[in-house]
């Protein structure tokens, strides 16, 4: 398992790097409006009405942005949690913890692809 993680390291680091950079860039606007602004009444609720959000999300650009919003944070999260586990004495369990976290990211990514295709 450890050997597989070492071989896959370039892919994992690529997804992690994109998660930190592009994931952060995309999440900021999403959180400002969808997570905080509309629920707190700062922006009108109509902005996130079903028809409008479906229209925004179901075109090619919308699907790519939404997929980025799902997939990239998962990989940033999985890799940083793996590092955290190692730093807190989990070096011996790294192979199993790392594999489990990346498996979660892979499953979430595949579900994310299905989710944006369904739109």
């Amino acid at each position: 398992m450890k050997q597989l993680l070492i071989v896959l390291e370039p892919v994992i680091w690529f997804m992690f790097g994109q998660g930190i950079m592009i994931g952060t860039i995309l999440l900021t606007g999403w959180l400002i409006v969808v997570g905080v602004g509309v629920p707190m009444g700062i922006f009108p609720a109509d902005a996130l009405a079903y028809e409008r959000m479906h229209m925004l999300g179901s075109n090619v650009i919308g699907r790519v942005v939404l997929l980025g919003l799902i997939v990239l944070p998962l990989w940033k999260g999985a890799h940083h949690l793996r590092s955290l586990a190692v730093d807190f004495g989990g070096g011996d369990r790294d192979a199993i913890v790392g594999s489990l976290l990346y498996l979660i990211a892979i499953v979430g990514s595949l579900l994310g692809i299905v989710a944006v295709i369904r739109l």
Partner: protein
Amino acid sequence: MARAAHPQAMQPKKPGTTRTAPPKMPDGFPGKGRYRTYVAFETTGLIYLLMGFIILRAIWQLGAGEAGWNGVMDAYRNPIMIGFHVLALVGVIFVGVRFFWLFPKAQPPRIGPVRPPPAAILKGMLYSVWIGTTLVMTWVLAGGAF
């Protein structure tokens, strides 16, 4: 052409005879000085992982129909959810500021024949893209366009 070497190809098959001190965590880890910031940076991984699944659920429900999406919006009005989203926003800004501070320092002296731009320009470019994308996304999502 020579094939790529395995990343641990140079590792000895059995440990050497030189005695080495057992590894130990540095003083101050995890709660003091730079370690606190470092651990906080890693801990944001939990926020990102949760955000990935929270957005996955929202988009899944958007694909399921109007009732599903409205259910997501109702859940987002829950004070606990708003609190988590505020925490996530703080975490995301913290990650962005720290990463964009580290990014120029991590550049190699040359990328092929090209030298990376000076740190100030690189940082300016990253912040421009971040702020610009955030403004556009906020404007579009909040109903300013379309």
